[in-house]
């Protein structure tokens, strides 16, 4: 039976999640130097174009068609059989295509998150090829394992409410891999790049926070109490994350920054993502407060020490936050919140924590290796990095023949 209320909520949530990608474009775009801002916006927008098509042609089928195998296969190629009747294994009272388009928005934003790692130095053609291959051979199989009918991690009992593993750890590890093999930006030691437009970062964060209600509360796939729970804990964790990051800066550097509050809010949103449908408000505050400590250490201490150039901290925020969120789900999950979920370690079920940890390890291992192979393949075929002259002049002019700001007129 199709529910009008549930269908309306999932469609609106889909639109909210789509808006996160332009939000991310501004979040990242504000952080780069002004000669590269259009390249980041362009990368985000072309992903919306490329993956929207990939998803309806074969991405959805590879991810969600029922199968016990490596991925879903091509039985739903071109949305064959994916119509307006519900598919009960995913959502029993909304049209199957509503679930499909909701999931499309997740498939779009996940590869967009990786942009933060290789911003300011990747060739545009290589970026498109890399993204298409990565979405097909990393995102789609992993999505199937965790969420698809017959997926082995789903059968194992892994809890990932809205994509902590599939989206954030996945993209975060891919970010680390690309940052490691792509190498540092030119002149990084002499020229510490400062964000060129902080208000853009704030605007992007606002759009992300707003869109995240669709991401997490929409993942209930119904307009019900579970959606409300996800909505409330999402807002709570974002608030705790932003506050916590500001406090850390205040204590450590003497002044809190808006960049810090934005980073912390996003880290909080990342961390609550896998847990949103399984935990209540107090754990959400703990998850948000702690994630900023972990992410802050990753970006302010570990990154400089190890020396990799994850330009905009896709790894430090998304992977570290995602891992914490996935593990925290194994700690704080409670059947009182969601009877269809499971109890976590603190509710007497240590096994759930082990399942969560295993899922994290599998994701890290698979994504690390396959991302590496895809990167090397693209590098061999067309070369991944722009030449030094192009990098110095900026990607806006050299990759797109445009510039964002004029000095004259």
């Amino acid at each position, binding site marked *: 039976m199709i529910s009008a209320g549930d269908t309306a909520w999932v469609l609106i949530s889909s639109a909210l999640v789509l808006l996160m990608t332009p939000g991310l474009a501004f979040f990242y775009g504000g952080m780069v130097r002004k*000669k590269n801002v259009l390249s980041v916006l362009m990368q985000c927008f072309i992903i919306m174009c490329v993956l929207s098509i990939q998803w309806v042609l074969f991405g959805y089928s590879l991810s969600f068609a029922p199968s016990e195998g490596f991925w879903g296969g091509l039985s739903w190629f071109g949305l064959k059989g994916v119509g307006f009747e519900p598919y009960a294994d995913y959502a029993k009272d909304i049209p199957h295509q509503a679930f499909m388009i909701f999931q499309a928005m997740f498939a779009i934003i996940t590869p967009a998150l990786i942009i933060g790692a290789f911003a300011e130095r990747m060739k545009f053609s290589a970026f498109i090829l890399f993204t298409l291959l990565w979405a097909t051979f990393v995102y789609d199989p992993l999505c199937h394992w965790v969420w698809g009918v017959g997926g082995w991690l789903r059968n194992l009992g892994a809890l990932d409410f809205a994509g902590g593993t599939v989206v954030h750890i996945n993209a975060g590890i891919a970010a680390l891999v690309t940052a490691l093999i792509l190498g540092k930006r*030119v*002149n990084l030691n002499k*020229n510490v790049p400062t964000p060129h437009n902080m208000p853009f970062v704030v605007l992007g964060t606002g759009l992300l926070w707003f869109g995240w209600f669709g991401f997490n509360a929409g993942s209930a796939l119904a307009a019900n109490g579970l959606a409300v729970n996800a909505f409330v804990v999402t807002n709570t964790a974002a608030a705790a994350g932003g506050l916590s990051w500001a406090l850390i800066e205040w204590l450590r550097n003497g002044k809190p920054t808006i960049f810090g509050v934005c980073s912390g809010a996003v880290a909080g949103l990342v961390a609550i993502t896998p847990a949103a449908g399984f935990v209540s408000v107090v754990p959400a505050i703990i998850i948000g407060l702690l994630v900023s400590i972990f992410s802050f250490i990753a970006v302010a201490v570990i990154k400089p020490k190890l020396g990799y150039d994850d330009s905009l901290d896709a790894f430090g925020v998304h992977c570290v936050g995602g891992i914490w969120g996935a593990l925290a789900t194994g700690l704080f999950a409670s059947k009182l919140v969601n009877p269809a979920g499971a109890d976590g370690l603190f509710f007497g079920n240590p096994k759930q924590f082990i399942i969560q940890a295993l899922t994290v390890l599998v994701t890290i291992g698979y994504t690390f290796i396959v991302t590496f192979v895809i990167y090397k393949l693209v590098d061999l075929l067309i070369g991944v990095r722009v030449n030094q002259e192009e990098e*110095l*002049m900026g990607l806006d*002019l050299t990759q797109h*023949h*445009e510039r964002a700001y004029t000095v*004259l007129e």
Partner: protein
Amino acid sequence: MKLIIAIIQPHKLEEVKAELYKAEVNLLTVSEVLGHGRQKGVTEIYRGAKESGNLLRKMRLEIAVNENFVEPTVKAIIKGAKTGETGDGKIFVLDLQECVRIRTEERGSAAIG
């Protein structure tokens, strides 16, 4: 007294600043400008409308110095900005008639440093 005006590549600014500080030249004004010399301009395309030979981003430094600082300043700018490619920029050295420090109303050489 001389006024030194230098036009350099934007990404060389930090290195030039570091060289100037090493030469104990700590007072400078920087602005972003557009222009080009022998390095040809860039092509931009907006909805198919092509604009060739557009001006490039450059940084303009203005530094007022006393005579004994002219050579160290010029050398420091060269050291920081030179790559050997076209587009490295130019340095102009001009006679400076007067200099006034507004705060103290000092004039001439005493007002420069």
